[in-house]
C-alpha cells in the first residue's frame, strides 16, 4: 500500500504539468477534466489508502521515492511519510480540493485563462500534499514554498488589476518572512541533529534537549515564525484579507481550507519540540488567543463578504493555535478538519452569490437572496451555524467546544485563554450571522444573473452535510464520548488530560459556550433584522466610528507595517537607486581627470617652460644629492 503513496501528490503535479504544457491548446472541457480528474483520482487513492490505513492501523506508511541529494551526511530524500496526522490532512486536501475543483469548472467557466487556473490549482494541491506528507523538513519546506507560490499565482490570477498583483506579492512576501525564520530553524535543527528527517528529530529531541532547553525554545519559536506567516496569525496576518483578491474557489481552497492551516500542521508535526519548549508553546497559545480576538473584531466591521470570511479564517486558525498552544493537539486538528469543511462551504456559497451578482462582493448591496437561491441559502446557513458553533447540531460546536474546554481545563490551560476563546466565540457568531442577515435577508438590491448550476450546488451540499455530521466522530465525555478522531491520532500525537476538578462540571462550560454562541446570533439578529436603527445610532457616535475604522483596517497593522517597513524600504531603496558606492569610483575617475587637467597645463607648448622643467628637475636632483 505504501507504494502508492507517491501517487497522491504526483497526480496533481502531473495534471499541472499537462495543463502548463498543453493548456492553451486543449479544449476547455478536456482541460477541466484534467484539472478535476487529477485531484479526483488523487482523492480516490487517498481514500483507498485511508481505508487500508484505518483497517490495518500501522504506525505509518513510508516511501522514499528518491534520494533528493546527499551532502556530507545531509541527505534529505524525496520521501513520504503517512501517519494519522498526515492522513487527516491529505484527506481534507484531496477531498475538499476535489469538490472545489469541481465547483471551479462552473465558477471559472467563462474565464479566458481557464487552463492556467487549473494548472495552478493542481500545482497547489500537489504542493500541499507534499507539505503534509513529507518525511523530512526540507521536503516539507518545498511544499511549504510551493503552496506559497500557488497562492501568489492565484491571488494574482486576475493580474490586470494592479491591486490584485499587489495583494499577491504581499501574501508571498509576508509569508516569506515567516518562512525565513523557519529556514533558520531548519539550520539549527540540522546542526543539532545532523538530519532533517522529521521522525528522527522527534525521537532524538528529548535526548538532545531537556525540557525548557533554550535551543528547543529557539527552534520552536523559529518554526512558529514560519507557521505564523503561513497561517495568517499575529503579527503576520495582514496578507490574508487582501488575498481575497483571488477567485473565490481559490479563497476556499487555499486561504480557508488548506494552505493557511499549514502552520497548524507544522506545529503539530513538530509537537515534541514545542513540548520541550513550554515558553514557545505558551506563545503559540497566546498568539492564537490574541489573533482570534483581533480578527473577530475586524470581521465584525467588514462589508466585503469575502473579507469577513477571511478574518473569520484568521480567527478560526487562532482557535487552532490556541488548541495547539495548550497541548490539545488532536483538538486543534479536529477543528482544522471541521473548519475546512464549513469554511470551504461558506466560501463556495459566497462564490456562488458573487457569481450570481456579477462579481459583487459588498454585502450592503446584497440582501434578500434567501428565496432566490434557496440551495445556497441553506447550505450557507449550515456553514454559518457551524462557524458560529451553534450547539448540538453543528460540527463546529464540537470542535470548538473541545478547544475551549482544553483551553481552560487542559494542563496548560488557564482562565485567560479560555476567556479569550469564549469572547471570540461570541464575536464569531455575531459576525457570522451579521453576514447571513445582510446577505440573505432584507430586500433584494441587485439583479440576480443566473442561478447556480449543479456543479456548484453538489459540492455545497456535500460540504454542508460534512459540516453538520463531521462533528459526530469526536464527542465530549458527556455527549456519548465518541473519540474516533483522537484515537486515530493517538499514536501520533500525545493526548491531553483535563483537570479532574473541572471535568465534573464540563457540562456547565458547554452550556456557557452554547449560550454565548446563541447570544451572538441574537445580537446579530437584534442589530440587523429586528431594529437596524440601533445600529445606525451606534454608527453615528464618534468613538464607535473611530473604533469601526480601526477594526475595519485590521487594527492598523497594515498602516503600521507600511510606515515602519515598506515605505522606509522603498524610500531608501529609491534614494540609493544610483548606488552610492558607485560614486566613489566615478569620483576616482573625476579625480584622475582633474589631475589630467592640471598636468596638461604644464604642457604649454612654450619652449621656455620646457627649459624651466628641466631646470626644476636639475634642482630637484641636486637637492636630493645634497640632502642625502
Amino acid at each position, binding site marked *: 500500500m505504501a507504494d502508492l503513496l507517491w501517487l497522491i501528490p504526483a497526480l496533481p503535479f502531473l495534471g499541472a504539468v499537462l495543463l502548463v504544457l498543453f493548456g492553451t491548446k486543449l479544449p476547455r472541457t478536456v482541460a477541466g477534466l484534467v484539472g478535476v480528474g487529477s485531484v479526483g483520482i488523487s482523492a480516490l487513492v487517498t481514500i483507498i489508502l485511508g481505508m487500508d490505513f484505518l483497517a490495518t492501523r500501522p504506525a505509518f506508511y513510508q516511501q522514499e521515492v528518491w534520494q533528493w541529494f546527499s551532502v556530507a551526511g545531509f541527505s534529505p530524500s524525496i520521501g513520504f511519510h503517512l501517519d494519522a496526522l498526515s492522513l487527516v490532512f491529505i484527506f481534507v486536501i484531496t477531498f475538499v480540493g476535489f469538490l472545489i475543483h469541481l465547483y471551479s469548472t462552473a465558477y471559472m467557466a467563462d474565464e479566458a485563462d481557464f487552463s492556467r487556473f487549473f494548472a495552478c490549482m493542481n500545482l497547489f494541491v500537489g504542493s500541499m500534499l507534499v507539505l503534509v506528507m513529507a518525511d523530512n523538513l526540507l521536503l516539507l519546506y518545498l511544499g511549504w514554498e510551493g503552496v506559497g507560490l500557488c497562492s501568489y499565482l492565484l491571488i494574482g490570477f486576475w493580474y490586470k488589476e494592479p491591486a490584485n498583483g499587489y495583494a499577491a506579492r504581499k501574501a508571498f512576501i509576508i509569508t516569506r518572512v515567516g518562512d525565513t525564520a523557519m529556514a533558520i530553524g531548519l539550520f539549527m535543527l540540522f546542526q543539532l541533529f545532523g538530519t532533517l528527517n522529521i521522525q528522527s528529530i522527534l525521537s532524538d529531541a528529548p535526548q538532545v534537549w531537556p525540557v525548557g532547553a533554550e535551543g528547543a525554545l529557539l527552534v520552536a519559536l523559529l518554526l512558529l515564525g514560519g507557521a505564523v506567516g503561513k497561517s495568517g496569525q499575529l503579527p503576520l496576518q495582514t496578507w490574508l484579507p487582501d488575498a481575497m483578491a483571488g477567485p473565490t474557489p481559490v479563497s476556499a481552497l487555499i486561504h480557508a481550507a488548506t494552505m493557511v492551516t499549514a502552520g497548524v500542521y507544522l506545529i503539530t508535526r513538530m509537537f515534541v519540540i514545542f513540548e520541550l519548549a513550554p515558553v514557545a508553546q505558551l506563545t503559540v497559545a497566546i498568539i492564537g488567543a490574541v489573533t482570534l480576538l483581533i480578527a473577530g473584531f475586524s470581521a465584525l466591521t467588514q462589508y466585503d463578504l469575502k473579507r469577513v470570511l477571511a478574518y473569520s479564517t484568521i480567527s478560526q486558525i487562532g482557535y487552532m493555535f490556541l488548541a495547539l498552544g495548550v497541548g490539545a493537539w488532536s483538538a486543534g486538528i479536529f477543528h482544522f478538519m471541521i473548519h475546512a469543511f464549513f469554511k470551504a462551504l461558506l466560501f463556495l456559497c459566497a462564490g456562488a452569490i458573487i457569481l450570481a451578482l456579477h462579481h459583487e462582493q459588498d454585502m450592503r448591496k446584497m440582501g434578500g437572496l434567501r428565496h432566490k437561491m434557496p440551495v445556497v441559502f441553506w447550505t450557507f446557513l449550515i456553514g454559518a451555524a457551524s462557524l458560529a458553533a451553534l450547539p448540538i447540531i453543528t460540527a463546529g460546536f464540537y470542535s470548538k467546544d473541545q478547544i475551549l474546554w482544553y483551553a481552560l481545563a487542559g494542563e496548560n490551560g488557564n482562565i485567560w485563554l479560555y476567556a479569550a476563546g469564549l469572547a471570540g466565540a461570541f464575536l464569531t457568531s455575531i459576525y457570522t450571522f451579521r453576514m447571513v442577515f445582510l446577505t440573505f435577508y432584507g430586500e433584494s438590491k441587485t439583479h440576480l444573473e443566473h442561478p447556480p448550476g449543479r456543479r456548484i450546488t453538489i459540492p455545497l451540499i456535500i460540504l454542508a452535510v460534512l459540516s453538520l455530521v463531521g462533528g459526530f466522530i469526536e464527542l465530549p465525555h458527556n455527549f456519548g464520548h465518541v473519540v474516533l478522531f483522537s484515537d486515530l491520532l493517538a499514536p501520533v500525537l500525545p493526548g491531553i488530560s483535563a483537570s479532574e476538578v473541572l471535568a465534573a462540571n464540563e457540562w456547565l462550560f458547554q452550556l456557557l459556550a452554547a449560550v454565548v454562541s446563541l447570544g451572538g446570533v441574537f445580537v446579530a439578529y437584534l442589530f440587523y433584522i429586528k431594529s437596524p436603527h440601533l445600529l445606525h445610532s451606534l454608527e453615528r457616535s464618534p468613538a464607535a466610528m473611530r473604533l469601526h475604522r480601526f477594526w475595519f483596517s485590521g487594527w492598523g497593522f497594515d498602516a503600521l507595517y507600511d510606515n515602519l517597513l515598506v515605505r522606509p524600504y522603498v524610500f531608501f531603496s529609491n534614494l540609493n537607486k544610483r548606488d552610492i558606492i558607485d560614486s566613489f569610483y566615478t569620483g576616482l575617475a573625476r579625480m*584622475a*581627470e582633474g*589631475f*589630467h*587637467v592640471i*598636468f*596638461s597645463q*604644464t*604642457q604649454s*607648448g612654450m*619652449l621656455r*617652460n*620646457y*627649459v624651466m*622643467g*628641466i631646470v*626644476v*628637475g*636639475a634642482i*630637484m*636632483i*641636486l637637492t*636630493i*644629492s*645634497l640632502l*642625502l
Partner: protein
Amino acid sequence: MTQNDFLHLMPLLILTFAALIIMLVIAAWRNHKIIYAITAISFVAAFLSLYELQDVQAYAIAPLFVIDGFAVFYIGLILLASLLISMLSYAYFEQREEQKEEYYILLILSSLGACTLVISTHFASLFLGLEVLSVALYTLIAYLRSRERSDEAGIKYLILAAFSSAFLLFGMALVYFSTGTMTFSGIAAAMAGFQELPLLLLTGFGLMIIGIGFKLSVVPFHMWTPDVYEGAPAPVSAFIATVSKGGVLGLLIRFFMEVDGFRYPVLMLIFTIVAIASMFAGNLLALMQQNVKRILAYSSISHLGYLLVAFLAGNQMGVEAVTFYLVAYFITTVGAFGVVAMLSDKERDAELMDDYRGLLWRRPWTATVFTAMLLSLAGIPLTAGFVGKFYILAAGVNTQLWLLVVMLVLNSVIGLYYYIKIIAVMFQQTEAGQEPLQKLRPSILFASVGTLSLLVLLLVGIGVYPTALVSLISSMLETFHPVALR
C-alpha cells in the same frame, strides 16, 4: 685598429658606408626607390653581419667600445627597428612632395649613433654617439619643412637637446674631474675606492641623469616629447620613441651596471622618483588627450617609467626584463606609428581621434593591427606587451620594489583607459561604408602592409611563445660584462 676591430664593428661600418654611398648616389641620381633599396639592404646587411658576432665574448676596443652579447642584441634590435621604420618611411615619404633622399642618410646616421651608444664604454663615445643621434634627429624631426609643426618640433627638440647635452657634458666633466678617468670601468674602480661618494661625483652623476633623462623623456625632462612626436613625421616619431630611447637605455644599463649605481641610495631614490613621476605624468597626461600621436608620446613616457622599474631591480633578471620589454615596446610602438603613418595624408598626419572614428568598419585590417598594438601597450595577454609587463613585474617583485610595483599596477590601470578609448573610437559604428582599398603601388603596399603584418605576427608570436626570445636574451646577456662580473 686591427682587423678584428673592424670585424667587430662591421655593422657600424656598414651603416657608415651606406650613408656615404647614398650621398654619392644622390649626387649622381636622385631616386627614392634606389636610395631606399640601398638603405634597406644596408640595414639588412648590418643585421646579418651580427651573425658573426653572436658568440662574441666581450670584445673590447679600448677605450671607447666593447662588443658583447648585450651590445649585439641591442644593435640587432636597433637595426631591425630602423629597418622597419625605414620601410614605413618609404611608404610614408613616397606620397609626400618633399625631397626624400637625405632622409635616409640621416636615418642611417642616427641609427648609427644609437648603435654607438650601446657599445660605448667611455664618455667620449657616449657623447659622440648621443650627438650623432641627436643632430641627425634634429633634421629628421623638421624634415617636412612645409609643415609649420615640423619646424616647431625641430627647434624645440634642438634647443632642449643641446641644453640637456650641456648638462650631460658638465656632469661628465665633474665626474672626470673627481675620478680622473672617463671609461666606465675606470669610474667603477674609482668609485669602489671611495668610502663615500664625493659630492662632486654625485653631482656629476646627477647632471648626467638630466642629459640621459632628457633623451629617455622621463619626468621632469619629458615636456618636449608630445610636441616633438606630434610635429615630427610619423615614422620619425616612431624612431624617436624606439631607437633613440632604446639606445640610450642600453647605455644607461651598461653604465649603471658597470659602476653598480644600485649601491647608492641617492641614485636609487632619484630614479625611483623619476620612474614613479614618469608613470603618473605620462598616463595622466594621456588620459583625456584627443591627439593620437600625443597619446602615444605620453604613453611612451609612462612606458619608460615601467622600464625604469625593471631597471631599478638591478640584477640579471631586471636587465632581462628591460630588454624583453624593450623588444615588445619596439614592436608595439613601431606598429602603432606605422598605422598612424599609413593613415596619414599629404596635408597632415592622422593624429586626431576623428581620423580613427569607425576605422574598424572602414579599414578593418588596419584597425585590427592598431588594436593589437594598443592592447600590447596596455599589456593584455596574447601580445608581447603582456609578457613584457609580466616580466617587469616579476623583476620588481623579485627585488621587492613594492612601491614601484604597486605604482606600476596602478598606472597600468589608468593607462588602460586611454588605450581602450582609442579602440572604442575605432569600433564606433559610423555611416560610412567600407572604404575601397587604396590602390597603392606594390612596393608601397609591401613596405607598409608587409611591415605591419610582420609586426603583428611578431607581437602575437612573442605573446604566445616568449620562450625563444627569453632564452635568446639570457644567452646574449651571458657575456654582458657588468652582469657577468657580478
